[in-house]
């Protein structure tokens, strides 16, 4: 049993770094375009919704709407960056470009590759989330002191959504199927998880579902940190995100083993 699944697991705690560095080397060549592309959408949402709706709404939960929204956009952009990197870029490296196939001929295991890809996607999420945090801080929508607290939460959000997206990548017969994950899972989750409006606006049953979603836990960590408020139940949120990261990681590794090493 162990022998069957050993190739699906990381061989040691450091092999994944070689995979991460390969992706970094390729990304470095297009870094500027990549950063601009990743930031354009959350920034336009932040300013468009923040200023536009903010004028109608006024304050939310004791702060300006744009400050409230900034944390939501940070969490959402971390989710979207990690997801897109995994379902599009990592999927292409697996399926179209056969990059993974080349790595499987080296001492690295499939688990090392998956871990490296998840870490890479989380790094991109961290970059996107941090950039928005810095913009929000610079414009006075968040506290400078919040950055050291927000960054680990953004990174964990990235790992979680990269792991979840890896399961989708492992199952998708082609990239045409990713749209279902985006429109049926991610977009509803964004509306349910209190990124754009407070969860208290949802009907009771939806609130109970929303409380289980990983993005809710991210927002519950990131928003108080950015607004300089104490974070409630840190252990619960971190624990929930860790479960959402670890379990899909293992599932994706086993699914990918069946897909690529049959």
């Amino acid at each position, binding site marked *: 049993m162990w022998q069957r699944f050993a190739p699906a697991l990381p061989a040691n705690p450091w092999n994944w770094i070689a995979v991460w560095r390969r992706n970094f080397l*390729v990304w470095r060549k297009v870094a500027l375009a990549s950063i601009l592309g990743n930031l354009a959408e959350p920034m336009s949402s932040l300013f468009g919704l923040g200023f536009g709706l903010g004028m109608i709404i006024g304050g939310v939960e004791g702060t300006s709407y744009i400050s409230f929204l900034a944390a939501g956009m940070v969490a959402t952009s971390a989710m979207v960056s990690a997801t897109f990197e995994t379902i599009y870029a990592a999927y292409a490296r697996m399926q179209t470009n056969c990059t993974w196939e080349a790595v499987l001929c080296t001492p690295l295991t499939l688990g090392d590759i998956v871990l490296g890809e998840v870490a890479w996607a989380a790094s991109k999420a961290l970059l996107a989330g941090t950039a928005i945090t810095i913009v929000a801080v610079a414009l006075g929508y968040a506290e400078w002191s919040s950055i050291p607290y927000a960054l680990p939460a953004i990174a964990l959000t990235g790992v979680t959504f990269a792991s979840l997206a890896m399961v989708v990548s492992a199952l998708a017969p082609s990239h045409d199927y990713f749209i279902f994950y985006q429109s049926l899972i991610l977009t509803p989750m964004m509306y349910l998880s209190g990124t754009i409006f407070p969860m208290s606006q949802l009907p009771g049953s939806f609130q109970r579902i929303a409380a289980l979603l990983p993005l809710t836990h991210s927002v519950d960590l990131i928003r108080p940190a950015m607004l300089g408020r104490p974070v409630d139940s840190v252990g619960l949120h971190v624990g929930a995100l860790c479960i959402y990261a670890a379990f899909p990681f293992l599932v994706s590794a086993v699914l990918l083993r069946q897909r690529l090493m049959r």
Partner: protein
Amino acid sequence: MSTAAVDLFQVSKFYDDRVVVDALSFTVSPGECFGLLGPNGAGKSTLARLILGVASPDAGKICVLGEPVPARARLARRGIGVVPQFDNLDLQLTVRENLLVFGRYFAMSAAEVEAVTPSLLEFARLENKADARVAELSGGMKRRLTLARALINDPQLLVLDEPTTGLDPHGRHLIWERLRSLLARGKTILLTTHFMEEAERLCDRLCVLEHGRKIAEGQPHALIEQQIGCQVIEIYGGNPHELLPLVRPQVQRAEVSGETLFCYVTDPEQVRLRLANCTDLRFLQRPPNLEDVFLRLTGREMKD
């Protein structure tokens, strides 16, 4: 523990209900070039995957460089270099960066990779392309870079899956010459191919596969001598089925494949004389080769 570079014993592999490798056994000794020869779909690439531990056998035992595979395939792969059937280089990166990235998978430092890069580039005749993006290289150059990449860890064993498929004759000859120099350096090569000429030129021994089964094994020339052992005349330009009865008394054996009549004869002149009255026929007289062996063993040509 086996001293063989590669040792397969009664290995089988099924995909769904289809047998891809059928109770196959063979041994590759250190320093030899061993060929797996067969048409597409014979199970060659699957065998390469099994040997690398990327796929697991459904039955049988595999041992590579003294390690049981797939259980300890990761350790075996430290000593293996692989040239896959289709190039999977990083197109966005330069030649030098491709070697660096691959060296890191073998836990080499940047300094270690840089130390071996000049000799690898020289080997691949890519000295002037070190900083070119791979996307700009020709097909032959990409193949040579893939070969250089496979040597980054100074492997004992090279697994080459159809290394010259898709190359022009010039590119193919260059790869062959490079592979011979590796054999001279004592490397072990396991080569899959459907090119008879490639197998005949490079392999010390080979195993002819059909539908995952071994249908012959031995040294190329011994196989040719054993299975054919006489001259060959290919006759085309007429209806081979009509010609067959005419030449039958003069030949040891004759086969029709496509529009060609293959005659196996000790005295080719007899056949020419016999068909002297038939116009528009073209004759190609040649020594026997592995293609003839395959035709003999399977009743059909190897060509895909």
